[in-house]
């Protein structure tokens, strides 16, 4: 089925938690192509509403919740956002055997159901108060308890009978952690922030022959080179040794807050497309928020955080204005860190990169931030 879908316009490959996809596609119409180990799948999305979940590994196919559960059983997945034109989307719906009007009705029903939430927001903030809205986006400032399970992600719209029916995940009620998600902007309050299915909170063992993706945090902390060329480790390939299967079952999935908006992703994607950019990551103290590029994130993050710690040590001693960036150059390339809104950017480049170009971009990003402009 994947092969039949229209290609769409690729926005870029990313690595992020599955929930990230749902919280960042409120205006997106297209397909999210997911690659996990040797298998591939997709999520057909219309303005934040997932219509089809599908995953295939060899002859095994997962549809609907089975596929969603499998996606959710990974802390992060690699995916490519591909925008569809209305024609392409109509074609994709047809391929997936979905009635377009049915998809629209479901979206309309969701919007209707979300009106009280929007009204509640308007009581507390001015609708036009962009800064207040922006504050709401920040997870630490005002988290909101997720809706009860009734809010679980909508099941995939009716489609052809799955050729493989995965067993339902075990009930997770006893071990279910409190689940909170950040609110989005007033404009996007109506969005269902892709609440993981019940089972996603305590991960079921994926009922597939594929290995669960190894959680990046579980990788050894040893000094691992992350630079381009021979030194750069690519993400686990099919030949990588299988990880213990217990991981997925014991793992408690912590929903990731939405931090980046669509324009941010576009900007990061544009930077990634520049010649010589190997990878770009948006990260904060706790975790990687977004990664574009084919590198192991943990070693890169470790280096980025060490550099960040250095800048924090020296900045109070220098009255040279605000920190713009720090670039570490080694024979294989450069690692650049720079503040980016409330987070930080880490850019991995080849040696041949035009540092002046990157420097100008970073300065522009900061100026936009300082002037409160929308990037």
């Amino acid at each position, binding site marked *: 089925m994947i092969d039949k879908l229209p290609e769409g316009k690729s926005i870029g490959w990313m690595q992020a938690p599955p929930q990230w996809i749902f919280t960042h596609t409120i205006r997106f119409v297209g397909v999210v192509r997911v690659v996990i180990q040797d298998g591939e799948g997709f999520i057909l999305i219309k303005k934040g509403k997932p219509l089809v979940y599908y995953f295939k590994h060899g002859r095994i196919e997962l549809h609907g919740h089975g596929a969603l559960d499998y996606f959710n059983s990974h802390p992060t997945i690699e995916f490519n956002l591909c925008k569809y034109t209305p024609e392409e989307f109509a074609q994709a719906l047809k391929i997936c055997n979905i009635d377009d009007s049915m998809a629209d009705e479901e979206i309309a029903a969701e919007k209707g159901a979300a009106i009280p939430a929007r009204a509640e927001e308007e009581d507390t903030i001015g609708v036009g108060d962009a800064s207040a809205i922006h504050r709401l986006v920040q997870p630490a400032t005002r988290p909101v308890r997720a809706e009860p399970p009734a809010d679980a992600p909508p099941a995939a719209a009716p489609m052809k009978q799955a050729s493989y029916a995965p067993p339902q995940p075990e009930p997770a009620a006893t071990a279910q952690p409190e689940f909170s998600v950040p609110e989005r902007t007033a404009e996007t309050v109506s969005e269902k922030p892709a609440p993981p299915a019940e089972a996603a909170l305590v991960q079921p063992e994926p009922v597939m022959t594929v290995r669960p993706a190894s959680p990046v945090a579980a990788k050894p902390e040893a*000094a691992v080179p992350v*630079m381009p060329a021979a030194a750069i480790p690519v993400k686990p390939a099919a030949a990588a040794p299988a990880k213990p299967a217990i991981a997925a079952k014991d793992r408690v999935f912590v929903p990731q807050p939405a931090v980046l908006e669509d324009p941010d992703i576009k900007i990061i994607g544009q930077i990634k497309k520049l010649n010589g950019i190997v990878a770009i990551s948006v990260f904060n103290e706790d975790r990687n928020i977004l990664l574009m590029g084919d590198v192991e994130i943990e070693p890169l993050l470790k280096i980025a955080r060490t*550099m960040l710690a250095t800048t924090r040590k020296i900045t109070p001693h220098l009255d040279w204005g605000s920190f713009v960036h720090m670039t570490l150059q080694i024979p294989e390339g450069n690692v650049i860190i720079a503040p980016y809104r409330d987070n930080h950017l880490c850019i991995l480049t080849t040696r041949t990169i035009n540092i002046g170009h990157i420097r100008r971009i970073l300065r522009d990003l900061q100026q936009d931030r300082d002037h409160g402009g929308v990037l």
Partner: protein
Amino acid sequence: MLKQILNKFLILNDVQAALVVQENGEIIESMKSGITIRQDLQDAIATIMLDSRKTATQFGNAPLSMVFVEFSESFLILGPVMEEFYLVIIAKNTANIGQITYEMKKNQDAIISLL
């Protein structure tokens, strides 16, 4: 003699200081214009040197080629010259970085011969 070489940097547009510094922060030689090298700046330079070398080891012990730290008003470029000696250039953000790094590479051997 070292001062003469450092002066080649100082004559570049908006370069404020050129220093040869030891890893412990001790200044071996310096040429500066319109800037005071205070102790906290020295400490900051020492921190960058030590931390950057440490960070570079995380890349499979790669040798450090250069470190560039930029702030909104000024920036600092630090390049290892030999062993624990570094050449540090401090400049306003309007300075030409390409020219500075070119001069750093061009004069590296001359500096080494004088250390």
